[in-house]
């Protein structure tokens, strides 16, 4: 049995797949055979097991031998052909900390990478409250302006890739699928994950200090966001403005649900496209979009507390 991922709920995903025995594995540095001398030259696929925090098996499925990418996509190594193909497997809900991946990272190079350093407790509590409150609000369909000012216009223009469309219920389900909130100032995750070039996310956020770049979200089936520590800027999680924080969750959640920088299907149309000007016209992006979007959602979309 080989542990693959520590999961966010304290459990793990493990596999009974037997890896191929490479010649260099036969004798480990201190002499112990790492796999039998008669072992196979190709992996013998087994079963993927999910175990809970107490070690109980909660589910199992045949292990296709998929390779996980840094973007949580699964690929078939297809050893018989010179190409690989994507597999439609659910992304593992890997946990916090540098030890969440076997061999340290998705590419298993024994470099231990803390992809999602946990938020400090103040930021964590504020972000958790915001996502819970927003999820409850939308699940109760208590934000009619979310539909009329945000979700319906996006549906009408089809500037999102999801066939199911978007409304309060759909977005509440997205938020309810779990989330991963991380501290970007310490993350060794490749900046490419958030579409921010080379280096690490920590490098990127250090380079953007004071530049209205205080949150980034990864496109995916569950919300995975990086927030600067609360109170350090006006545009990250705020210490005393819960509705602003809910607006920030909605803003970032829209990126995670279907937009990469808000420009997935229609180039040059971002979420700022939703904000009307003083004459009520939409489709204008006037600059400073990030903070304008959050403030607009805060002041013009979410119901007053």
């Amino acid at each position, binding site marked *: 049995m080989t542990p693959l991922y*520590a999961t966010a709920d304290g459990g793990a995903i493990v596999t*009974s797949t037997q890896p191929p025995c490479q010649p260099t594995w036969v*004798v480990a540095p201190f002499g*112990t055979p790492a796999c039998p001398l008669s072992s196979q030259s190709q992996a013998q696929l087994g079963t993927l097991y999910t175990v809970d925090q107490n070690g109980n098996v909660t589910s199992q499925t045949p292990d296709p031998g998929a390779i996980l990418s840094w973007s949580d996509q699964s690929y078939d190594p297809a050893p018989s052909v010179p190409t690989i193909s994507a597999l439609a497997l659910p992304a593992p809900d890997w946990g916090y*900390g540098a*030890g969440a*991946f076997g061999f340290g990272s998705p590419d298993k190079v024994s470099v231990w990478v803390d992809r999602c350093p946990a938020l400090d407790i103040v930021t964590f509590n504020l972000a958790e409250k915001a996502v819970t409150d927003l999820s409850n609000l939308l699940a109760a369909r208590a934000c009619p302006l979310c539909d009329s000012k945000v979700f319906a216009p996006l549906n009408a223009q089809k500037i999102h890739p999801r066939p199911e469309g978007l409304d309060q219920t759909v977005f509440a389900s997205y938020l309810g699928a779990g989330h991963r909130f991380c501290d970007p100032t310490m993350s060794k995750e490749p900046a490419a994950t958030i579409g921010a070039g080379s280096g690490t996310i920590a490098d990127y956020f250090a380079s953007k200090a004071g530049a209205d770049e205080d949150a980034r979200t990864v496109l995916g089936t569950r919300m995975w966001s990086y927030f600067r520590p609360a109170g350090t800027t006006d545009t990250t999680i705020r210490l005393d403005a819960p509705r602003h924080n809910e607006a920030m969750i909605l803003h970032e959640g829209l990126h995670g649900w279907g937009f990469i920088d808000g420009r997935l299907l229609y180039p040059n149309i971002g979420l700022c496209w939703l904000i009307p000007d003083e004459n009520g016209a939409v489709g204008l992006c006037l600059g400073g979009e990030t903070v304008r979007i959050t403030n607009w959602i805060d002041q013009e979309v979410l119901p007053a507390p």
Partner: protein
Amino acid sequence: MRNFSGPGTCNFSIEPGIYYNVPWLTAITNGDSGAAILSQLDISTGGQTPQPLNQISYVSQDGLDSQVTLAIDPAVNNWWPNPVSLSLQREDGSYIGADKEGNLFAIGADGGVVW
């Protein structure tokens, strides 16, 4: 004295008649603090039955911080032919690993068995 008693096993003696086997060392991260080194020793004294000793040594940039002994059952998780390895660290600092027979376990940072 140093001798090889079989494939993959290295014996050496620090004191006459007492043998220490160091068949297995693995390293894993310890959060942001450094690394945890799992060493599996087998201590033999004269003709006595080998006594396995599984330890985690926590090291950081400044050197050795602490050592704990794993409370795993040596009858099940003996050093040979059943070395264990630590593969994952959970958010609470405990580790998930497996032995060579495929048995999964979780141990706390203090070496105690969680499951």
